[in-house]
Structure formats: C-alpha cells, structure tokens
C-alpha cells in the first residue's frame, strides 16, 4: 500500500478525533457544564503546562515503578514457565492455579504490599505491578513453550539433540510470539499497578496526584495526570512492540496479530 492510500485510511479516524474534541468543547459551552465535572480540552492541555513540575516528577516516579515491576514480574514469570516446561507434570498440575490466580483482583492486595514494604519507597507499587505482570506472562510463556510441533522435536531427536538444544532451538523460538503478546498486556498492567495502588494509600506518584486532584475537584489536573499516564502506557507498549518486531521478523502472522 502506498503512502497516500495509507493516509486516506486514517482520515475517518482523524475526523472522529476532531469532531470529538469539538463536541466536547461545544457541549460544555452550550449546556454550561460546570468545569469541575468536565473541563474543556484546552484547559487540560493548559493544566499539563501549569502543573508540569508536579506531573513530571510524579510521572517519572510512576514510570520507574511500572518499569521495575514489569521487569521483575515478567522475568519471574518467564523463569517459572521455563522450569514448569521442564517438569511437565508439575506444570500441568500448577497451570489451573496460575489461571485461577490470574482471575484474582490482585490490585486489592496492594494495601498489604504497603505493609510489607516501606510505603514511602516505590517498592510496594513496584510489587503490585510485578505480581500483576507475573501471571499472564507465566501462563502465556508456558503455553508457548509447550505448544511446539511434535515433528520438530522428532527432527531434533534425529540429530541426537539433547533437551538443552531442543529448548534453545525449538521451544524458545516457538514461545516467543506468545511471550510478546503477554508482555504487551503486561506493560498496561504494570502501569495500572503503579497508578491504581495509590488509590488505597496516601503516598505515591501519579495515582496520588489523580486522587488528590479529584478530591479537590481540580479535574483539570486529574485529567492531565491521566493524559501523562496514558502517554507513558503507550510508550511502554510501543517499546515492547518494537522489540517484538525486531525479534519476530520471521513471523508472517505477526502483522495480523499486531493489529488486534
């Protein structure tokens, strides 16, 4: 597809964006909605500027918490999955537990992490983010490591290859697409963990900014903080997608999965 055609594809989406902003601005003026309920779009952008020092330091802290939790949780998930793939019976016994654990509202445990770690440090938020990332990465990695084609294992066995060689040359490449789709989900979860666990406590970063601004009916700042959080979330997501694109150059189905 050439550039012009691709640009044309985006026209409807851009129109919707502009129309949405215009409608937003207009409806506030026409219906005289109080600004603490719904601030004007321009006011939010303005708040981003006036509150830039608060937002910058809170955002930076949130990013550190999210990234730390993401790194810890995801690597622990992959490591566990590798062990469980090696000991298949243990893996199939623990799989239902991991799936059930995935259904637990883990965010609700963040007050406990505040009791475990120094609530003034980033550690409790990082822990929430890590636990949130852990289970989906574990489940997906294990699924990937065990969904190899039996014939490919047979090929390796015909070369008298050992378990290590099979793991490295067949299981890991097969698992990579699964791992990346879990990592993309995990970036969002890490961000949610870092922000939303603030809602339970009194110390923290962007989440506290949002919580306190809402309490003071300063919705401009709250929305500005949400905007910053969203941008950070998207940036993390894009970073993982780029890594995926680099690592999975061989995969013809990547495009299809990437858009969904």
């Amino acid at each position: 597809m050439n550039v012009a055609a691709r640009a044309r594809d985006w026209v409807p989406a851009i129109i919707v964006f502009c129309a949405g902003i215009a409608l937003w601005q207009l409806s506030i003026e026409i219906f005289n909605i109080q600004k603490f309920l719904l601030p004007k779009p321009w006011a939010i952008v303005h708040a981003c500027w006036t509150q830039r020092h608060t937002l910058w330091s809170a955002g930076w802290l949130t990013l550190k918490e999210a990234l730390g939790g993401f790194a810890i949780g995801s690597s622990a998930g992959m490591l566990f999955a590798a062990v469980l793939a090696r000991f298949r019976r243990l893996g199939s016994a623990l799989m239902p537990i991991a799936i059930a654990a995935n259904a637990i509202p883990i965010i609700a445990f963040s007050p406990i992490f505040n009791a475990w770690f120094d609530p003034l440090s980033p550690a409790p938020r990082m822990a929430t983010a890590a636990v949130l990332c852990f289970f989906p990465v574990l489940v997906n990695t294990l699924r990937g490591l065990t969904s190899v084609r039996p014939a490919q294992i047979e090929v390796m066995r015909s070369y008298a290859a050992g378990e290590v060689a099979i793991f490295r040359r067949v299981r890991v490449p097969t698992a990579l697409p699964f791992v990346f789709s879990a990592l993309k989900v995990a970036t969002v979860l890490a961000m949610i963990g870092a922000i939303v666990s603030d809602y339970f406590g009194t110390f923290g970063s962007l989440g506290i900014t949002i919580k306190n601004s809402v309490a003071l009916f300063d919705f401009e700042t709250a929305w500005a903080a949400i905007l910053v959080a969203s941008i950070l979330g998207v940036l993390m997501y894009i970073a993982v997608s780029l890594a995926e694109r680099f690592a999975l150059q061989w995969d013809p189905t990547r495009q299809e999965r990437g858009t969904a």
Partner: protein
Amino acid sequence: MITVTLLALWGLWELYRFIWVETGWTRPFPVNGTTMPHVHTIFKAFGQQSRFDGPLLISVLLRAALFTGKEALVGFLMGASIGFVIAIGLVHSRLAQRAFLPYIVASQTIPMLAVAPMVVVWLQAGWLSVSVIAAYLTFFPVAINTLRGLQSADPRAHELLSTYAAGRWKVLWHLRVPASLPYLFSALKVSATASVVGAIIGELPSSIEGGLGGAILNFNQYYSLVPQNLWATNLIAAALGILFFLGVVLLETLVVRRAPVQTA
C-alpha cells in the same frame, strides 16, 4: 485436587513464614505476625466480630461481596452486550471500523482503570456509577475480540453461503456469530476479572461503603492492629474474582459446545 492445592499453598505459606522468622531475614520484607499472619488466624477472623458488638466478619464480608458482585455483574453485562452489538455494527461498515477501531485498540494500551475516580464523581456516586466503570472495562476487549471473531470465518464458508443466496443477517447468524464465540469468550474471561477489579476500585473514591472496596479501605486503617481482617477481605475478593471467571468458563462450556464442530 483443589484440596491438595490449597493444603500445599497453606504449607508453603507457613514454611516460608517459619524460615524467615527463624533466620530473621528481612529481604524482601521482614516476616512477622503483622506482615504475614498465620493462615489459621486469618480463617479464625471470619468467625469473629469485626467491631465491638458488630456482626461476624464473615457476614459483613459476604454482604460486601454480594454488593460488589452486583455492581460488577451489572457492569459486566452492560459492557459485554454493548461491546457485542458495536462489534456487529463495525463488522458491517469499513468506514466505521476506520473511524473508531484505532481508538478501541488504543484503549487497550492505556491504564483505563485510572479514570475510575472521575467517573464516580461525574455520575454522582452510587452503585450504578461503579457499574459503569466495570462496563467500560468490559466493553473494549469484548468489542475488539468479537470483531476479530466475526471476521474470522473461513472465506470458503462465506462463498458457500453466497451460493445459498443468504442475506446479511443469515450470514451473521449462521456463520459470523458462531465463528466469533471462541473469541468472545476469551475476552469475557479477561473482562470478568476486570469488572470485579473495576467495581472494587470504583468504590474507593466514592463514599460507598457497602462493598469490598470500602471494606479494604476500612480494614487497611486498622492493619497494624488486626491484619487478619484485611487478609480475610482480600481472600473474599479473590474468591469473587475466581467465581466470576468460573461463571464465564461454565457459560462457555454450555454455549460453545457446538461451535468447534461447526468451524471444523
């Protein structure tokens, strides 16, 4: 099987506790009666009064779970049905897909849950406004996945239905919807948990106290004195999340029973 698992988890918990207490390790965190209460202490808390002269903790928590469960369920049903209907609309219009799909996809890369406090204040705190949070958390994954599912049918099956001169609605009912069900349910499983999370978080900034979110905030304040109450609350929250998930799994086994046969 479940009993063995739970016993094993109990054993691990107490073993970890024992080792850390005995050796006095403080990494990653110091272990004591406050940070990790005994499992039996937590379970005993269910049978005790949460407040002087108050009802038993278990009845307080079950009532809270029922309340939060109602919020989550209403939101889940709203979000899922709206998402499903929107997906059916989108699948029939390329233009609408181009206009709205990028935003639905982008919604999956941002922390939507963070908007919860605004929504609650906006809609004037009430359990229904908490449901709205659960609804929008459910809506986006359901809409995307259903759309993908509706588009996933074998092109040859579309050709076959064309030879029967089947109209748009026949194709939708006999081909697209059955093909979408596995996709729909994988979204519903994610959303089931998300709607419970959304309901709990939605209760936090409002003055809603009847639910699990309120209970967590309340017991969190007394954590250093009675940590087992917060743990007990979280166990109930975990059970609620798993219950929602299992509900969707059960529904899936009832509904999708025929789907693989049709797509095979």
